[in-house]
């Protein structure tokens, strides 16, 4: 009898452990009735605590998922440097970006020259810092490209051709390429057709696909694509100031200073290189430099000439 008792004790201990193990950790749960539905979902608004963070806006240049990765990491740097919270605001277009920063939806925005000038004209947006290229140069060029096997070699040959621009608000994708064509005597009316693709990539794709005989894109992309052998650059523009980071006029100065300081300290080619993802696909390969308002005088004149600043 005592043997059985001992065995019973042993087995009870064993079952205890089993029972203990079988028990799952109590996790807080909530009962939800999935059958209680609404058809008008517009009334549903997500509760979020991101309202206090600073919004960083950028316009879409490449795939959104790519850009989200790139700028997400960048914002990590800023948060770390400034101690501020940042939210990324994705703009579908240059115009949306202008409106986002102008209206204060975003406090900061990565903008090209033309977009900045527009935003400055319409909303009083300031440029905080200017981007630097790979060689720490603060300027960039626009490139007019053709398909690699295209017979077009000069810009003047583009009269009567189909030409693709990037975004209507793009400096390297529209303003400068248009100016380059004009300087070669090719006006928009001289083109058989011209259209806006919305981005440098779309423009490049349009040229590659043959939707357009030539197109105007950013130099970085043009150089890369030419290197890849898919296009050929037939003309490069003068150097103009790169895109920079604009700031809404209502952002407090101390925040502006913090951010500016962090931006100027940003060394994407150096010490901050490891934490970045595909930063080389941006226009600020070399980081940022201080902005001088006269940097955009030339572009401003060109934009005014084409009445792009008054267009909405």
């Amino acid at each position, binding site marked *: 009898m005592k043997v059985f008792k001992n*065995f019973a004790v*042993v087995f009870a201990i064993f079952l205890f*452990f089993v029972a203990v193990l079988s028990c799952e950790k109590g996790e*807080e749960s909530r009962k*939800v009735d999935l059958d209680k*539905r609404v058809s008008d979902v517009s009334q549903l608004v997500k509760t*979020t605590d991101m309202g206090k963070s600073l919004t960083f806006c950028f316009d879409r240049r490449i795939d959104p998922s790519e850009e989200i990765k790139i700028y997400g990491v960048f*914002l990590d740097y800023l948060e770390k440097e400034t101690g501020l919270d940042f*939210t990324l605001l994705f703009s579908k277009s240059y115009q949306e970006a202008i409106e986002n920063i102008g209206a204060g939806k975003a406090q900061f925005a990565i903008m090209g020259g033309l977009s900045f000038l527009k935003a400055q004209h319409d909303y009083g947006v300031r440029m905080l810092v200017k981007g630097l290229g790979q060689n720490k140069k603060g300027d960039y060029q626009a490139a007019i490209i053709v398909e690699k096997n295209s017979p077009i070699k000069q810009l003047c040959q583009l009269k009567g051709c189909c030409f693709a621009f990037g975004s209507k608000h793009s400096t390297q994708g529209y303003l400068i390429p248009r100016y380059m064509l004009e300087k070669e005597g090719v006006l928009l009316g001289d083109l058989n057709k011209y259209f806006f693709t919305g981005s440098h990539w779309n423009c490049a794709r349009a040229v590659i696909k043959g939707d357009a005989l030539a197109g105007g894109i950013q130099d970085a992309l043009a150089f890369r694509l030419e290197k890849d052998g898919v296009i050929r650059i037939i003309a490069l523009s003068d150097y103009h100031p790169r895109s920079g980071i604009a700031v809404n006029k209502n952002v407090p100065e101390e925040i502006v200073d913090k951010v500016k300081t962090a931006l100027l300290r940003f060394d994407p080619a150096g010490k901050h290189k490891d934490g970045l993802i595909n930063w080389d696909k941006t226009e600020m390969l070399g980081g940022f430099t201080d902005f001088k308002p006269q940097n955009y005088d030339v572009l401003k004149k060109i934009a005014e000439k084409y009445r792009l600043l008054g267009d909405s």
Partner: protein
Amino acid sequence: MRFRTKQMLVFSLLMALICSAFLIFSLAFYKNSMVEKAEYRRASLTIHLHNDIIDMVYTGDVLQLTAAIKSIRSDVTYIDYIFVIGDNGHLLAHTFDTGFPSELFNVNFLPAGKLATSKLLITDKGRVKDFAIRTARHMPGEIHVGMNEEVFYKQINDSVKMTIIMTIVCLAIGLFLVYVVSGYLSKPLKNLSLGMEKIENGDLKYRLEEKGDYEILNLLRGYNRMTESMLVSTTRLQQAKEALIESEAKFRTLVEKIPTITYTAALDEYGTTQYISPQIESILGFTQEEFKANNDIWDKQLHLDDRNRVLKETAASHPNDIPFVSEYRMLKKTGRTVWFRDEAVVVKNEAGEPIFVQGMMIDITESKQAEKEKKKLEAQLRQSQKMEAVGTLAGGVAHDFNNLMTVIIGNAQLALMNVIKDESIREGIEEIKKAGEKATSLTRQLLAFSRKQIIKPEIMDLNIGINETEKMLKRMIGEDIEFQTVLEPELWKVYADSGQIDQIIINMVVNARDAMPQGGLLTIETANADLDKNYFRERGIHEEKPGHYVMLAVSDTGIGMDKETREHVFDPFFTTKEVGKGTGLGLSTAYGIVKQNNGFIWVYSEPGKGTTFKVYLSKVEGDVEAEEKERTCAEHPGGSETVLIVEDDDSLRNFAQKALRQLGYKLLVAENGEDALKVCKEHDGQIDLMITDVVMPKMGGREAVERLQPLYPRMKVIYMSGYTDNAIVRHGVLAPGLNFLEKPFTPKKLACKVRETLDN
């Protein structure tokens, strides 16, 4: 607890712990691993989902986005729903068919700074975990994926259950194996334990089977060797023990059973008893505890007459290491006396120092009594021999004397029968006759005392004898003495010779009379008595004959007797009377008669307190026989028959011849048996009667009768004798059927006897 049980318990515990540990770790790690994998898979799925739809989220292609998430949901069974919230905080797309569950929208809050979070929801479909993922870092948009836990974890749960079940099964199998293995492993120990039990129960012949592994084999062999050795030792020990027990039992029997008190005493001043055997109680009446508790008992119980002597002997022996031997008396607890022979020695240790006294007190009371009895018997024997000698002398004298008296009395009677006118001659002859009768009486007494008298017992009533002799007795005691009888009306009968009873009564009455010279009271008493063994023991009679007796007592109120007189009262020729006043044979005669009749006689007397003689005769059944004593006979009984007289005494022969001739009988005479044969041979005709003496030279009467009886079948025989003889007497009693004529006899007695015998 048994080894096997402990073994099983230990192994079971270990197994249980191992199984538990395995279960714990397997469940923990496996489950965690599976959960991790599942989570990873879920995370991967989520990431893929995120990657797949993120472009659609930011291109704003809601339709494509909705189609994409619905497709994903349908492909993955454990996804209950997916919905996407844009950066503007509004619902972009979802997978619900109709409407959207409003409670679901904000149920899982994704804080700023966190890329993902989860929330367990309880829905009608069960437990659903809502995973919220940011569409991008630093972007408010969220993707929510609802994964059904039960479906998702089903496999894990099933695996866990299976693991638990398998663990339990393994544990059960393991326990069974433990049971089996422990049994196998503990078998040698069990056998060894069994072997030890056998040893414990005394079975040293049990041997273990010697097989197994090296160590076990050695152990078993060692056990068998040990058992063998133990058996040998035990056997020897047992034998020694049995011998010791036997010896001890013998000694104990000896010490405790023999009628001897064994003791051990200290050599202190008190002689403190260290050991006293149990016989102390049966012999002295004191328990062992009583005796040991009180050192004075031995002293106090010593007989007064022996104490001083014994104490001196003790004091002289023990201190001087002299063996103590002494015979002394002690008083039992009841007060009775017991004789001891005490022998003790001083016991010394190895160093020669005296340590205690050890001794034995042998109860010699019986031997002392036997010794006393022996002395008494020796005295009795001497007395008896003396009396036997006297009796033999008396018998011898009586035989011849009776013959002479027969002649004297017979001739005197014959002379008186012839008329003698001269009175002086007649008186003289009368005196001769009286003297002869007195002499005959004296002879008879002598014969009775010596038990040589021939007795003819018969069933009789003592009361009749007493009543018949009362007148004579009163005349004997005189007028100064008052005579009374106290007779038992329903007195039992006795078988005795009436003449002898008369003799007894007369002798005791005479003694009583003589004890009361100044007068007094004489009482004769009869009674029925039952005598038991104690009665005989108290009187020191070894020949115990308990039974029914008839008591005859004669008491007087005379001077009484002292102890010495009482002890000699039945001695022959003992008398306290003056010379010439008593023969000293009366009471001894009575004594002899009583003994001859197998009775007992005692005297009770104290000086100045009178005397009582009590005679006890055995009761007999039957009626009183016809008194032949008072049988009448014709005045001159005669006849004409032929009578043969055989007698070696010439005078007596002539007397008898003469007496019978006068009565008309034809007579033949012979001197002895041989002569009788010659006479008969020469005689023609019948012989009707043969009167013969018993003891005769050449041929006795008995033999002559045996020789003649066949020749004369109708011949009757009368034996005549005054003397007991084995020929016709057995223990003094006449053989039944024989006619006897006691000498001396008168002519009338002779004539009556002859007539009576011829007429019967």
